[in-house]
């Protein structure tokens, strides 16, 4: 059993919220995840040196077509996770990278599909388009760790209010008076 610490979950929530606010889609995360899984499979079969494994990991992360700030945040979290795995003597360390990306993907779903969508719904916004996308980013930026995520899950209208929305009235700035 690989025990996942609270710190790691908090870090994953923070990275996921950065990815959402920087407009990274779930399918882009899925692409990174599948490339890392292929690398892990090769490393597990014993075909890669640790150095080569690291090089290929860097290559995958550089090649990912995502915003730079999102990339930095993602790479930092994954590197930290790989470093911890390495200090525990786990091999291949890239398995810690796939685990971290999976955790981030869970957080992404929880933030985007559950919490933000419901917060928008409480404000009467039923779909995300060019006009409402900045709101999603603003909401995501507020979610910095698991306890905040849970707080907003329990009370989605609070997230809507704190992001400048009023119940059933849509964005305050663009409302027609």
């Amino acid at each position, binding site marked *: 059993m690989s025990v996942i610490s*609270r710190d790691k979950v908090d870090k994953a929530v923070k990275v996921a919220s950065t990815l959402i606010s920087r407009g990274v889609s779930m399918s882009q995360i899925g692409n990174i995840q599948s490339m890392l899984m292929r690398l892990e499979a090769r490393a597990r079969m014993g075909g890669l040196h640790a150095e080569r494994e690291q090089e290929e990991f860097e290559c995958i992360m550089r090649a990912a077509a995502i915003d730079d700030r999102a990339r930095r945040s993602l790479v930092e979290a994954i590197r930290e996770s790989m470093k911890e795995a390495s200090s525990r003597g786990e091999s291949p360390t890239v398995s810690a990278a796939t685990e971290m990306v999976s955790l981030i993907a869970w957080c992404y779903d929880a933030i*985007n*599909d559950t919490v933000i969508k419901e917060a928008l719904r409480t404000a009467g916004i039923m779909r995300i388009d060019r006009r409402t996308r900045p709101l999603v980013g603003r909401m995501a930026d507020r979610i910095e760790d698991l306890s905040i995520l849970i707080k907003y899950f329990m009370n989605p209208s609070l997230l809507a209010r704190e992001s400048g929305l009023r119940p059933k009235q849509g964005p305050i700035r663009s409302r027609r008076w």
Partner: protein
Amino acid sequence: MSGSIGGDLLQAAFQVFKSFKTGGKKVEQAQLANIVGVYEQYGSVDMVKLYVIRQVGRGKISREAAKTLIEKLERGYSDRLIELIGLVRWFYDAVKDRKIDLTQVNTYEEFVSKFVKGSGVP
């Protein structure tokens, strides 16, 4: 099991069961096994909370059910998660072949009473 199962845990399990059965979307029993699976795989109640929230977005667990379970976990039942979910599964098993209207049933005792009186005939 880590300790005796008292009335509090039974009440908590009943409330979770009721929310799972009567929320906006009835939660399939398989979700309970998944919750236990996540806990056993990651050894973390935080992962269970995250999983449950994610499942709401995927339409597998109703919002009410997730809220009730997370509330219980936040209010001191996190170290008895396996027992709590185990009891919820027992409630699921108990009503498997019966139709019991849970809307007016608020406590574990009321549930047992309704069950024994046979108001929930198969």
